[in-house]
Structures are given as C-alpha cells and as structure tokens.
C-alpha cells in the first residue's frame, strides 16, 4: 500500500441479500449464528482500488455495473458486505447534491445548513459566504427560500456550497449534467481548479469526452468487478470493446453451426427457425388485421440473432407475413425510434421499389431487409408494420393492418476510438484532398 494514497479499497464486495420473508431476514440479522437462508445478489465482487493524493480517477461502466454502489461504499452511505475501505480525509460526493437542503430556508441559510449536514465548521463556511454568493450567481434569490428556486438555481446553490467546503476527496457522479451550459462550463473550470490545487477526484460519467479530458487513470467496471484499469484512452476503448457485441448473441451463433447461411428463401425449415427466434414475443400486433406479421428475426452479418450492432453494421431483418383476408396492395416496413420517440428512419418494401403482389387468405411470404445502421450510438426501438396501400391516391398513404411496437432496444455502439461520423445519422459522404499548385 502506498503511503500517499487517499483511498484504499481492498477486496471490496457488496451483496444485497434476499430472504424468503421479512421475519427470516430479521432472524438472520439478530441471530447470525443460526443457519442462514438468505440468497446473495452480488453487486460488487473483489474490487481493489488505490487512489493517490491529487489523482483524478474515472470510473466507467454500463448501468448496473456497480459504479454507484462503489461510490456509496466509499462515501460511507452503504456498508460493505466484505472487504475493506480506508479513506484518509474528508470525502464530499456531488451525488448528494442538494439532498439535505431545507426548502423553507433561504439560500444563505442552506449553505450553513449543509455545513451542519456534513458536520463541518460553520464559521469557516460563513467567512467565505461572499465568495459562495458570487459563485452561485443567484442575485437577490440568494436570500429567498429555496422552494422558490428553479431546478437550475438549486443546483447552482448546491454546487457552490460544495466547492467551498474544500473536500480532500471529491466524488462526482453525473452531477454536471444539470444547470445551463454556461454554469456547467463554470463548474468544469472549478473542478479543474480543485484538481490543480491537489484535490483527489473520483469521476463517474457516461460522457467519455469528459472522462478523457479530466482523468489521469480510468477504471472500467463490468458486472461488479474491475475489467480494466489504465490510461483514459485505453480504458474508453476497452469499455466499447467490452460492450460492442452482445455475448449472448455470439454464443447463440456458436450453438448453431449453419446459422451463417442466413435464411434467404421461405422454405419450411427457415420458417421454424424464424418462429423459434422471433423478436415479436410480448409485442402483440395492433390493428384491424387482414395481414399479420407471424414472426420476425433480427440478425447480424454472421447470421447470429442479435440486437446489438456497431455503427454502420448491416442488420438483417426477416419478417414472415401471412394474409387472413385478401389484400390487394400489401406493403411491409419498419421504423427505428430514438429515446425521444422520434422516428429516426423508416423504410418499406414499396419505397425500395419492391411492389408486392396481392395476397389471398392463407398466403404467406418472407420479407428480408438489409439495412446499414449508420446511426449515432444509442438505443433504438424497432416497430414493424404491414399495410394495404390500395385505395389511396397519395403514394405515401396506406391503411395499417397490423403493427408491432417497442421491440428492442436495438443497441448501436461505436467500436472504434474515432467516430465514423458525428450527429444523429451518417450520410454517404466523400472527400478528396487536392494539392493547390501555385502557378
């Protein structure tokens, strides 16, 4: 163990134990010698971490990888199940931002109040009240009750009082996503200043840009243990590599040796595979009917069932449709919606010039789409639609016969350090660099 370390975490483990009932939990807690019937759910296991004085360490990982639990254990808001945590110095966590504020007190009173909340010397805080007031930029609101504040003002007050408490260790957990852009920049500057003054910082974020800029060292947490520890660039890359492919999908592909020959025709065996791997489960069709989607599959280029893709990778979407009534001008399509429920992209057979012949009751066809997912990294919902376009003069109009919504989420991730494009979607672009010849 290094002498100048501020945080030492050794063999840390945290489990949430579940019991058949409250009474058996109580019995287990009060009489630990009795046979223990609890079931352990490990959130963190075997985590070792040393943070040196003045170091800025980033912690990244997916939701549920144990980041927040680790931070709460370090601040002391949770008790470890196993292992040891030693913290030398005062820890302040921005994840507590504003938690203890009293809405009936003014901003000024709340600054003192948060000092009490952290059992701090009030006199010290009071002597810096002028600086806090200036930093918060609240104007006359500084003396108004906090309940009259907007959420942005609230965060400004909380952040300002935190900075002036001068912690030895500062823990930042996504807290900077609030407030307007200018205050965010100011907070970032303040954090950089604290870093320059030698404050030890633990930074948890999904903002890989911020992680790269701020951190000296980054830890990648995965399923409750440290998957990687090292320089920020390498760690961010590891993070993407770790989660770029869905391990279940890869396994499923390995189990089926012939999966590589993705079903292209509508033979009966393909239909069985389609039904067995259908993504429509729990997503019933909505609509008047007449034409229905029996099953659908989502495959990667190796033919493995997956909902996780890299940017620009081709997704193969297979849909088996069957008519239950005569449909004169059938059409099949899909939509991708982002987290704001905006349609990012929609496509149908007709748009691609694949006009479909009329379907008689009981007739079925298989439709295959291959789409390159040139989308911003993120999660998307998939909607599948069948329609009848007959009787509409507008070529874009049709009667939706059945639709399946909210399938997924479909994950799109970036596997490379350099993003292939910026923004919501990639557009085919070419670039040529021509030397200028001076004449």
């Amino acid at each position, binding site marked *: 163990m290094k002498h100048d370390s501020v945080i030492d975490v050794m063999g840390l483990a945290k489990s*949430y134990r579940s019991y058949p009932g*409250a009474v058996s939990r109580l019995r287990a*807690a*009060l009489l630990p010698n009795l046979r223990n019937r609890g079931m352990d759910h490990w959130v963190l296991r075997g985590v070792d971490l040393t943070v040196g004085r003045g170091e800025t360490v980033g912690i990244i990982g997916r939701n549920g990888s144990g980041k927040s639990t680790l931070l709460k254990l370090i601040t002391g808001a949770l008790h470890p199940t196993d292992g040891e945590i030693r913290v030398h110095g005062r820890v302040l966590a921005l994840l*507590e931002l504003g*938690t203890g504020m*009293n809405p009936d007190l003014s901003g000024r009173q709340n600054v003192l109040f948060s000092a*009490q*909340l952290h*059992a701090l010397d009030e006199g010290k805080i009071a002597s810096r009240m002028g600086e806090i007031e200036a930093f918060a930029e609240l104007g006359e609101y500084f003396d108004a009750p906090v309940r009259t504040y907007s959420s942005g003002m609230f965060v400004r007050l909380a952040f300002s009082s935190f900075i002036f408490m001068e912690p030895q260790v500062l823990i930042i957990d996504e807290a900077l996503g609030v407030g307007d852009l200018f205050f965010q920049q100011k907070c970032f500057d303040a954090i950089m200043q604290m870093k320059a003054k030698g404050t030890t910082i633990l930074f948890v974020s999904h903002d890989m840009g911020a992680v790269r800029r701020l951190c000296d060292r980054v830890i990648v947490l995965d399923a409750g243990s440290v998957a990687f520890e090292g320089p920020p660039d390498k760690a961010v890359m590891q993070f993407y590599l770790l989660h770029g492919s869905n391990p279940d999908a890869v396994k499923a592909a390995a189990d089926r040796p012939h999966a590589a020959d993705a079903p292209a025709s509508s033979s009966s065996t393909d239909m069985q595979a389609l039904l067995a791997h259908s993504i429509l489960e729990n997503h019933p069709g909505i609509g008047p009917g007449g034409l229905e989607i029996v099953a659908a599959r989502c495959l990667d280029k190796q033919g493995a069932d997956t909902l996780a893709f890299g940017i620009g990778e081709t997704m193969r979407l297979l849909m088996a449709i069957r008519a239950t009534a005569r449909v004169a001008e059938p059409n099949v399509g899909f939509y991708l919606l982002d987290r704001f429920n905006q349609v990012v992209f929609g496509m149908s057979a007709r748009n691609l010039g694949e006009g479909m012949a009329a379907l008689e009751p009981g007739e079925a066809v298989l439709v295959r789409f291959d789409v390159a997912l040139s989308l911003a990294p993120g999660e998307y919902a998939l909607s599948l639609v069948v329609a009848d376009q007959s009787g509409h003069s507008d070529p874009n109009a049709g009667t939706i016969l059945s639709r399946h919504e909210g399938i997924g989420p479909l994950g799109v991730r970036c596997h490379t350090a350099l993003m292939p494009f910026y923004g919501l979607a990639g557009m085919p672009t070419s670039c040529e660099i021509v030397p200028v010849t001076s004449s």
Partner: protein
Amino acid sequence: MYKTLIGYRRYILVNAAAEVWTRYAGTSLGVLWNLIHPLTIVLVVGGVLSGLSPARGANAGMSMGLYVACGLIPWLALADGISRGTTALVQNAIFLKKLPIPEEVYIAKSVVSTSFHFTILLALLIVIALVAKGSASPIWLLMVPTTLLMMLLTFGFALVLSPLNVVVRDVSQAVPAILQIGIWMSPILYPEELAPNVLRRLQVINPFAPFLTAFREIIIADAIPSTETWLAMGGWTLAAVVLGVLVLRRLRSEIRDLV
C-alpha cells in the same frame, strides 16, 4: 454513538425545530394545536372524573384536572416520541440512501423534535398546576431531570424499534395499537384506586409507571420522588438505551440496503 451525536448536534437541533414548525405549517392556530388537543382531553376527563370523586365542587374538578394532566401530558410525549421514533429511519430513507450520516442521528432528531413538543406541553402543565394550586414550588424544577430521563428512555425505545421497522414494516403498524393498550395500563385517565389488582401488580413491568409516579409526586404533592422511583426510572432508561444500541449495531449493515 455519543461522539457522532455531538458532531451532528447542530444538524439535529435545527432539523428538529424545523420539524415542529412544519408540522403545523399552513394552519392558522399553528403551534397552539399542540396544546388544544391535550387540553380538551384534560378538561373532559377531569370533568368526568370529578363527578366520581367524593369531594364535589369546582375545587374537586380542578384537582382532578391536574391529576389527569400530570399523567396525560408526559404520556402524550412518550407516545409521540415512540411512534415518531419508530418511523424515523423509514421516513428519512432518501437521506439514508445518499448521505453517510449515521442512523442514530435521524433517530435522535425525531426524539429531540418530540422534546420540543413536550417542552411546550410542560408549560401548559405548569399553567394548569398554578391555576389548580394557586402557588408554585421549587420542587417543580425536578421536572427537568425527570423529563430528560424520559426523553432518553424514548430514544432507547426508538433505537430498538426504528431499525426493526426497516426490516419488518409491520412494527410501525403495531406500535400505535400497543400504545393504545399502554394508556390504559397506567392510571392516567382514571384514579389509581379504580385500577384492578392485576393491573396494579403489572406496574412493575410498565416502564412508564415510575415516571407517572414522579410527575404526580413533584407537581401534586410538591414532594421529591423516592429513591426507589429514581432508580426505577434510571433502570428502565439504561435498559432501553443498551438494548437499542445492541439492536442498531446488529441491524446497521442491513438498514441502508432496505430502506
């Protein structure tokens, strides 16, 4: 635990005071409601009991009122402290999940808030005593240590009950029912002579009994409570606090996972 509570004393006091004020925020009579509720019980029960008393007249009514007030007011404080203390941890779940503030701070906060409440009630008791007796006595100052001991007893109970309530939420439902029995276990709303023999013997296991005796001795008889009474009060308090510390120590690691 003692050190923790000292460290967070300002937080405890400020929050407890805020709790007392916000409890009646928005009502036009405000904190007066703290007094009206017990005062009506004292008047009604005192009036009814004076009808049972052999000595009739206004004087008997006053002394019966004082008799009831001496028992009821401390009881209300104890009951308030225990029921609030029981939910102290569950109600502060948001803070427990995010802040490293130790559990006992929240429990102490709820008991201190009850103490503020109790202080206001004791002022009412003194007024009733002055009206009923016409004069004050320096012995009444003994109410201070008696009150402090009783609040410490309440803290002990809360230390036992509030961690238990985090694990088994039924506790907070059972406590009011048990308190309802408790008020009839002691001769609070009826004269001691009317208590059945069985109940009189049960006073040995009633933690409130010595406190009831002490308050009545001090205020009605202007007498110093007996050593036996002091020992009983101290004994119950010590037992409750020790048990509370043990229960909290055992359950501490579970609390934040469960709230």
